[in-house]
């Protein structure tokens, strides 16, 4: 047996991801024999501290799981609790929830493209450095991000941990004048979103085809946000309450995030998976703009995630405009809630992928148990698989600084939200 020579690199953290983690590689004779994405975000025990809380406290508590996608946690939770209570919030609430989610998609996807991902493809260490040469592009991204925050603020008072959502609907309805002001700003921003899609497609994205199963929600008539069944590129079509039959989580020593598998295999959630499965749900103007890029979808190139994200920004803007164009003040902003005991499921599309939850309540509407499966847990096994395939394709003989840069780029494609799931990136290469 060869002796394992261990090299530690002096790279304290993986930058430009939400949270921190580390990566360990085992290399033997040019082959990658082990990949461990180490997530050691301290556990905060949300599922336990929710027990005994009343249903009406849930939206404010679950928001705190993630500062970047609080709306996603709120949305999966309210849908699950309403399914237990038999609450029908009606069409106005349904539309406003889509609008709120569009705000979060705009905010989170713009933040990821410009502040986190694009510097990789343009050769800059970060967006601030990139802004020297690409000032207009960075500003465009920040303006789109700001518009997303404005939408969330319209319905939630603030963009991080918004306060507007309750089980049954919303605490208030935005005023017509505020809606009209925001609507015209969104209309003005439309060309920016169209250009953004073209710009991401023009980046020098590496070619890297991999085999993976895409999983996302699929809805009979819409690009999925709050509703749908769990669909897969292998033909899977599963009601959300049957999720546990085919998807399972496990715990490994190197991570405080749980690993999800689908039929025992890694799978992909997030913008690329969603777009791969829901191309036919895009409005014609969004799909037309995408087709003009020449980037073929469905795609098995993980680097096309940045294009998929831009398409979803375009979609979110168009959908938000549609909703605001039709805006009417409602008779009631929320349905009456009559708590009862039961089990319910919520599954919605967080910016970085499907967010599944299971809730159990008692007769008074107090939480008996909660189970939350964030998108980053679902992607964790896929990220390791991707790293393995990527490194085997490009070779592992490169200097460690180059290897680290490549690995970080691969990981970043998934926009892992390590607060939801994680701390990055000490790269440790064990060479046999």
């Amino acid at each position, binding site marked *: 047996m060869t002796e394992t020579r261990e090299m530690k690199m002096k790279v304290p953290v*993986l930058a430009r991801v939400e949270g921190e983690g580390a990566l360990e590689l085992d290399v033997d004779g040019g082959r990658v024999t082990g990949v461990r994405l180490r997530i050691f975000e301290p556990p905060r025990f949300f599922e336990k501290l929710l027990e005994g809380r009343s249903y009406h*406290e849930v939206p404010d508590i679950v928001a705190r799981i993630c500062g970047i996608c609080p709306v996603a946690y709120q949305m999966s939770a309210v849908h699950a609790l309403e399914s237990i209570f038999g609450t029908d919030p009606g069409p106005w609430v349904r539309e406003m929830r889509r609008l709120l989610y569009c705000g979060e998609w705009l905010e989170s996807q713009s933040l990821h493209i410009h502040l986190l991902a694009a510097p990789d493809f343009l050769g800059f260490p970060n967006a601030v450095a990139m802004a020297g040469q690409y000032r207009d592009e960075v500003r465009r991204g920040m303006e789109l991000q700001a518009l997303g925050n404005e939408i969330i603020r319209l319905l939630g008072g603030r963009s991080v941990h918004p*306060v507007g959502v309750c089980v049954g609907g919303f605490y208030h309805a935005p005023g017509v004048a505020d809606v009209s002001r925001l609507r015209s700003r969104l209309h003005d921003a439309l060309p920016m979103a169209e250009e953004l899609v073209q710009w991401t497609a023009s980046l020098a994205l590496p070619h890297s085809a991999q085999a993976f199963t895409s999983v996302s929600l699929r809805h009979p008539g819409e690009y999925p946000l709050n509703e749908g069944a769990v669909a897969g590129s292998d033909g899977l079509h599963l009601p959300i309450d049957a999720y546990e039959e085919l998807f399972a989580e496990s715990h490994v020593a190197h991570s405080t995030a749980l690993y999800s598998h689908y039929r025992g295999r890694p799978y992909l959630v997030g913008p690329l998976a969603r777009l791969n499965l829901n191309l036919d749900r895009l409005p014609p103007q969004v799909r037309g703009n995408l087709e003009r890029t020449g980037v073929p979808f469905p795609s098995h190139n993980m680097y096309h995630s940045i294009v998929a994200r831009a398409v979803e920004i375009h979609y979110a803007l168009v959908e938000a405009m549609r909703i605001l164009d039709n805006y009417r003040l409602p008779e009631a902003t929320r349905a009456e809630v009559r708590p009862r005991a039961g089990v319910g499921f919520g599954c919605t599309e967080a910016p970085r992928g499907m967010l599944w939850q299971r809730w159990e309540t008692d007769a008074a509407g107090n939480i008996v148990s909660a189970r939350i499966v964030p998108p980053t847990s679902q992607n964790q096994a896929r990220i390791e698989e991707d790293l393995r395939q990527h490194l085997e394709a490009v070779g592992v003989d490169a200097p460690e600084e180059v290897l680290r840069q490549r690995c970080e780029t691969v990981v970043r494609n998934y926009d892992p939200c390590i607060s939801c799931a994680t701390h990055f990136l000490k790269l440790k290469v064990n060479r046999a």
Partner: protein
Amino acid sequence: MTQPQRKPRVAVHKFSSCDGCQLALLNLGATLLDVVERVDFVHFVEMGPVDEEAEVDIAIVEGSISTPEEAQRIREVRARSKYLIAIGACATSGGIQALRNLNRAPEWTSAVYASPEYISILDKVTPISANVRVDLELWGCPVNAHQVLSAIRALLFGVVPPQNHDKLCTECKRLGVVCMMVARDLPCMGPVTQTGCGVICPRQGRDCYACYGPAENANAPSLARHLEAGGMDRADVRRRFLSINNAAPAFAVVGKNEDTEAARDRDA
């Protein structure tokens, strides 16, 4: 105004948190590009720069201390920083995750994780000030950009940042917002909660849920008695205080006695 010799060096550090307070900076939009012309972010992982061991003028710290590694790391951050600003509910009070202090975390670990032996945590979640000296606390879940920028700006001018720990009620009155407690009979936390959020809940017709933490001279027991006298169940009243800022001493008093007794009963 004289220009400083060099741009002040700022580090942003994350501990146990949701990342939401750092977003006060990352959500600044084009203003962020102006900020980086005035200060040098030498360590801000989510934005890109990584130099954890750099000596800095200002350390901005998000999150609470919940693991042995964090307890060690915050001491190192303190040693390398001239000013240390704790931002957000986690850093100032312990945050929502401090609720586990009232329970038995080891049992929680085995309930959430299949292999609890992989998880290393401290017995108690604590705010930054319980671990090291803190020069300035900005409360709120989350803090907002105005708070963070005005603090940085004041420090750049070499003055102590203005602090307003007034009760939310005073701001509500100034803004002419309808009183949720008097007019709507809601269990509003405004009388004990510090201002700074922009009164977003009462403006939406809902009662404040105290995400900005205790105001100065907050009389939590008095508000708790008032809510109970109004017919609210004692357990519901306690949960109003034991929420986002449950470990803030001014709020913790409301739930403390019963919890200690309950814990004693369990251990007996």
